[in-house]
């Protein structure tokens, strides 16, 4: 399955397409049907997002997990600074990424 990601234009924050808007939480990401290009073009033109692109991901009982390590690092934050990630209190975050 594919989901859409990009960066917020103003803050640069990593964001995920929810089907209606952009969220910083990957678990809010919506599965894409085949109109990714149209969504990207529309959202980018409206400056809701910067440089969006589709990526592969899987969904299991824990939620959505991007297929590639790089996107998992993007989804959470740097593995070497848990305090700066989206789950600063979760001691197990490294395992989610890798």
């Amino acid at each position, binding site marked *: 399955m594919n989901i859409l990601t990009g*960066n917020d*234009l*103003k*803050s*640069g*924050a*990593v964001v995920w397409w929810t089907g209606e808007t952009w969220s910083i939480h990957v678990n809010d990401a919506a599965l894409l049907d085949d109109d990714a290009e149209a969504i990207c073009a529309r959202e*980018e033109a409206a*400056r809701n997002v*910067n*440089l969006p692109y589709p990526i592969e991901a899987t969904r299991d009982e824990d939620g959505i997990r991007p*297929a*590639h*390590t*790089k996107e998992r*690092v*993007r989804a959470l*934050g*740097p*593995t*070497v*600074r848990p305090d*700066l990630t989206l789950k600063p209190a979760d001691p197990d975050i490294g395992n989610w990424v*890798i």
Partner: protein
Amino acid sequence: MYLYDSYDQQMVDARVAEFRDQTERRLNGKLNEEQFRPLRLMNGLYLQLHAYMLRVAIPYGTLNSRQMHALAQISGKYDRGYGHFTTRQNIQYNWIKLEDAPDILADLAKVEMHAIQTSGNCIRNISSDHFAGAAADELVDPRPYAELLRQWSSFHPEFTALPRKFKIAVIASDTDRAAMRLHDIGIQIIKNDAGELGASFYVGGGMGRTPMIAPLIREFIPLDQLITYSEACLRVYNRYGRRDNKYKARIKILVHELGKEEYARQVEEEFAHLLNQGVEPPLEELERIKLFFDDPAFESGLSNEIDHSDPDFARWVDRNTQRHKIPGYVSAVISLKPVGGIPGDASVEQMHIMADLAKEYSFDECRVMHTQNIVLPHVKMADLHALWTKLEAAGLGSPNLDTIEDIIACPGLDYCSLANARSIPVAQKIAERFADKGCTEELGELKLKISGCINACGHHHAGHIGILGVDKKGVENYQLLLGGSEAQDTALAKITGPGFSEEGIVDAVEKATEVYIANRTEGERFLDTYRRIGMDPFKEALYG
């Protein structure tokens, strides 16, 4: 150190105003990303893995305390409380908001700093010896020449769209502390047989995908032709460098494909053509610049005695200080490599402390090393214990310069969108392994360098031990390299064989050090032993 005149300040202020306007136009939709991207890159603003990243130029790594305080304030006000010192003697901020970027550039301009030419296919920040003006073995201070080159290369209209980025290093001692021959142009200030100062030009070095050691292409250029000859080197490259293939566009490929003799011949031809064109600034300009780099008011007649009775202090002095040209002084290195820490990172508080210590103990000056540490260049030996005590209290007193704990690591996959693998956790695990074993000091000088991809920002080709992160079917994998050096005995490291997992690479490094210990002779460093016994015993231990 160099201080801006009104022209410098005007240029930097004008650039801030221009970028403020460009940013506003991007935010209100008058520019799209395709139009804006080259403009933000010209101001050092990248879009990285988690946010915008701003790279700020620190010319030849030299900072005064006011500038270091300003860098700290930016980390606190606009970023997340830390900065990352890089292998190009610069600083990077990882969490910048686009809307804040013009204000940050304005804050930098107030302390004579900027982010101009820290990205893009132009001449980048000029790097130099971090012990310049202090080292006992230097001929002259190389920084006035670096500054002259900085002024020549800043906004040079002919060289803002080169085939690729271009990096220049300048040194003035036979000991190379700036990886000079691994730059596009490496310049060494020397004296000829007649006792005149001049410059040797090494052109076409670099790391990255195709590492090369720059060959000597001109033994001696008089200093009143330094800029003209540099211009000739750049002109030949600008005309014939490969623009058709990004991976073959660096000058090293041109020099390699033409052959150094033919490249040098073309440069000489261009040089002869340029000599009467008034390219060279008048020598008075160099003299004017030199005044900024006069020695501070060193005291004379100081003793070289240091009280070594405190063993922890003695260890730090032995490891982290460097002989100074003036008796009674040393250059002291502040390690940004605490075991388990992130190489090159410093918190807001640590930056403020380093700035205060530079002011109190080092004539208001500090330097960024390409090894991602900070130097206080001129410290009185009598002040060392007080300095060390304060560093210890701030978590900045690690006594590990040039040891296996003093690892260069690029940001890797934790921060960098080009990365294949993470560098920082590998550095942390290796440092922890050796610190736990308690054998760091026993291993002596051992330079370990890690890059998260083939771009080699972590200088892995030049490590006594180098590690390159690769992507093996979606899993991080690490190649091990041995035998590199970026010092005066510059050498490119060789790959040992198949790569290792994240845990496996730590074991592999440990095995390599065991081979060294088992084979070394009296006084041999890891690199010396490797050069004497060759790769085979290491391969046998790693894969046998």
